[in-house]
C-alpha cells in the first residue's frame, strides 16, 4: 500500500494500477483524488507513467505492429512466403474492406486470413525450432490463454513458434506452429469465445481444417497431413490439457459460424486424463479413419513420425 500521509490515506497501490489501466472512468471522485495525490508524489506519478508506457509497448508489440517491423528471419521462421508477401498489400486491403463491410470472419472466409500481414511474432527465442514437452512448464497461459502448449513430438512434430492475430480488442487468435523433419507443417489455431463466426473454410494447405471446441475455445488444425493424422494430433492435444474436461470433439459443421466441410466420421469422445507426459499414459483407443482401433503411442509411434 502506498500510504504516504493522512490526506491521501485512501490511495493505494490498487488505485494507482487501476488508474493506470483506465479502470476508474466511472468513479470521477476517485480519479480526482488519485490525480491530486500524484501531483504531490512524483515518484508514484513516474510509476503510473511507466505502467501506462508498458501497456502501450505491449499493445504495440503484440497487437498493432505492422509486419514490416517483424525481422525478415522471423517472418521466414513463421512461414511468410514470398508468394504470399507479393499479395500482402492487396490482401490486406481486401481484408480491411471486407472487415468494414462484413466483419473479420468474411475476410477470413475469403481466404485472406492466411495473407493477413498483422500476425505478430512473439520473440527472438521462439524463432528457433524447439521441442516443447508436455511435462514442461511452457503453456499458453504465458500469453493469457489457459491452454497448454501441446507436445506433438511423439508424432515427430516439433514446436517452432507461435503468433497472435487480434481480431478485435478483446479477441485474439493464437496460431501455434509445428513442423517435422520431412517438411510437414501443422498449424493449430486457438480462438477464444466460440460464439461468433471465426473459422476459415480453407487454408494455406488447401484442405479443410480439423476443428473442435472445448470450453470457451475453438481449435482448428491446419496441415498438409491427412485428416486422420490431424485427428490423432487433436486427441493428443486434448489428452495433454492440464485441466482437461472430457473433450467434446465435434465435426466442424457442428460449430457455429461459416460452414466447414464436415468430417466423414466424427470421432468419439475421449476422456481427458489431466496427465502430463504422453509416454507415461496408457494409450487411448479410438476409432481410426476406417473405424479400426488405433492406439495413440502404439503402432503410430512405433512406425516413426506420424505419416
Amino acid at each position, binding site marked *: 500500500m502506498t500510504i504516504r500521509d493522512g490526506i491521501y490515506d485512501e490511495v493505494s*497501490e*490498487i488505485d494507482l*494500477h*487501476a488508474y493506470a*489501466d*483506465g*479502470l476508474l472512468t466511472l468513479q470521477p471522485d476517485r480519479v480526482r483524488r488519485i490525480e491530486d495525490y500524484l501531483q504531490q508524489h512524483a515518484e508514484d506519478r513516474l*510509476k503510473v507513467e*511507466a*505502467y501506462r*508506457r*508498458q*501497456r*502501450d*509497448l*505491449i*499493445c*504495440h*508489440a*503484440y*497487437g*498493432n*505492429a*505492422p509486419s514490416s*517491423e517483424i525481422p525478415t528471419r522471423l517472418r521466414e521462421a513463421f512461414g511468410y512466403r514470398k508468394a504470399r508477401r507479393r499479395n500482402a498489400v492487396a490482401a490486406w486491403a481486401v481484408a480491411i474492406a471486407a472487415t468494414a463491410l462484413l466483419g473479420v470472419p468474411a475476410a477470413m472466409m475469403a481466404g485472406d486470413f492466411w495473407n493477413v500481414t498483422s500476425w505478430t511474432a*512473439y*520473440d*527472438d*527465442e521462439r524463432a528457433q525450432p524447439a521441442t516443447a514437452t508436455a511435462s514442461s*512448464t511452457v*503453456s499458453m*497461459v*504465458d*500469453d*493469457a490463454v*489457459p491452454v497448454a502448449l501441446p507436445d506433438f513430438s511423439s508424432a515427430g512434430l516439433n514446436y517452432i513458434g507461435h503468433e497472435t492475430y*487480434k481480431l478485435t*480488442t*478483446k479477441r*485474439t487468435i493464437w496460431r501455434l506452429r509445428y513442423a517435422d523433419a520431412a517438411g510437414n507443417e501443422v498449424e493449430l489455431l486457438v480462438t477464444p469465445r466460440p460464439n461468433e463466426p471465426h473459422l476459415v473454410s480453407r487454408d494455406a494447405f488447401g484442405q479443410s481444417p480439423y476443428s473442435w471446441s472445448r470450453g470457451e475455445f475453438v481449435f482448428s488444425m491446419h496441415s498438409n497431413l491427412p485428416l486422420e493424422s490431424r485427428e490423432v494430433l487433436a486427441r493428443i492435444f486434448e489428452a495433454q490439457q492440464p*485441466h482437461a474436461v472430457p473433450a467434446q470433439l465435434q465435426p466442424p459443421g457442428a460449430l457455429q459460424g461459416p460452414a466447414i466441410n464436415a468430417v466423414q466420421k466424427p470421432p468419439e469422445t475421449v476422456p481427458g486424463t489431466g496427465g502430463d507426459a504422453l509416454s507415461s499414459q496408457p494409450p487411448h483407443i479410438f476409432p481410426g479413419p476406417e473405424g479400426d482401433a488405433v492406439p495413440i503411442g502404439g503402432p503410430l509411434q512405433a512406425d516413426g513420425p506420424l505419416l
Partner: protein
Amino acid sequence: MPANALPDRPPQEARVEVNDMIRALFKLPPEQRAPIVLLALENVSYEDAAQMLGIPGGTVRSRLFRGREALRELMEEADERRPRLRRVK
C-alpha cells in the same frame, strides 16, 4: 507521426523500446506475465482477468503489481544500456 509509432519517441527508438519490452516480458515468470499481457491487450477488469486465468482476483492483482514493478526495473536497465539516437537535421 506514423499511425503505428509510439508517442514521444522517434520511430527507430520506439522500435528498440518495443523489442526491449518483449525481452523484458519473457524474463518475467509466466504467472506474472499472463495478467500483464491480458490487461494490456484485452483491456479487461481485474475480476474478468481473474476469471479468464482461473485464479483469485487478489492473486491477479498481486502478480500484476509485482510483474509491473519487475518490468519497470528491467526497462530502466534496458534504457540505461540503450544508445541514444540523435536527430540530425
